[in-house]
């Protein structure tokens, strides 16, 4: 069975960018989501926010920010990811991964 979705923890940006080149292009039609952790402590960020945003832009995929230590945000992000997984696996009738991705993109750009 094809894997429905991948989430990347961006600890080292170059690794991620290199591995993205090997991913089947069909995944990027709404089945890929970038998950960024450790956004709370601004002084310890090893990756530029700009670079992350650009990555999301170039690969036409949404970027989710999460602080793993805080329970509330952790739970909320987990629920969001589960929802996206449900849609990508086709469990929600009438909504395809592509249409959902387009929906998220349009609302984010506005």
């Amino acid at each position: 069975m094809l894997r429905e979705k991948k989430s990347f923890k961006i600890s080292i940006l170059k690794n991620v960018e290199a591995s993205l080149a090997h991913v089947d292009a069909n995944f990027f039609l709404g089945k890929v989501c970038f998950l960024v952790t450790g956004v709370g402590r601004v002084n310890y960020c090893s990756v530029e926010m700009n670079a992350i945003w650009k990555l999301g832009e170039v690969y036409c995929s949404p970027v989710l920010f999460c602080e793993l230590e805080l329970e509330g945000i952790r739970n909320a992000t987990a629920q969001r990811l589960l929802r996206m997984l449900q849609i990508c696996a086709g469990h929600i009738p009438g909504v395809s991964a592509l249409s959902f991705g387009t929906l998220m993109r349009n609302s984010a750009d506005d």
Partner: protein
Amino acid sequence: MAEYLAEVTNNCVSPEDAKEELLNECESVWKHMEECQSKLLLLGTETVLESDVKLSLLTMRVKALTAEYHQWQKRSPELISTNPDVLLELGKEELQKVKNDLEMVLSTIQSKNKQLEEDLKREQQWHKEQEQILDTLTGIEEETKIEVQQLPNTRAFQELQNKMSKLRMYKEELLDALGEFLEEHFPLPERGRSAIKKNSSEEPAVELITLNEILEILIAKLMSTPHEPYVTIDDSFWPPYIELLLRYGIALRHPEDPNRMRLEAFHM
């Protein structure tokens, strides 16, 4: 429960038949899925070009979206099943789901309302406290005003006033003496060569001011705005006098701007 049984006996289809029907449907859908899966596997994988990632992804998106769009256009609503039992069960499930969702929405909104009410109460409390502070301060202001009005009657105040007037007179004397001294020893350059000046291009456009006036300007600026003691030098300041003041440490240039200077703070 009794009505359900009555319905069942009235229909020609029994619950077992309904189950059969559903299972058959599942089988056919599963077979369809297997065919699609094998077709997908045959398509193989393609990776994205490094050079033009966004462009290739966007073209792919366009293709996929148009394909999906056509697919949606072709589709027409199809009956899930004609079996009333199945429909009943499905209906119940849907309504249950809707009920759960609405309950969630209700609880969210209720908690939000509570939050807003708490915020409102907090803000009102703060507002009340601020008003109290304002009232107290106005009261204190009133009292101090009354006190100030009574102040001139005390003797200490009178003595202070005398001292002030004496100091003022002394200051005037000093300034007059300074003015006379400066006029005598540091006059303005004389304009004796007026005939020659008409031909030369070095005609000062602005009238020069005396050294006394320069010093007055500097002192006034320092005393009125001690945080901003710099005065811009314009053409009315005679350059040699500026040099004089700078060389003897009476005035200082602005560290970054050569056109500004200030009086040295002798009083601090």
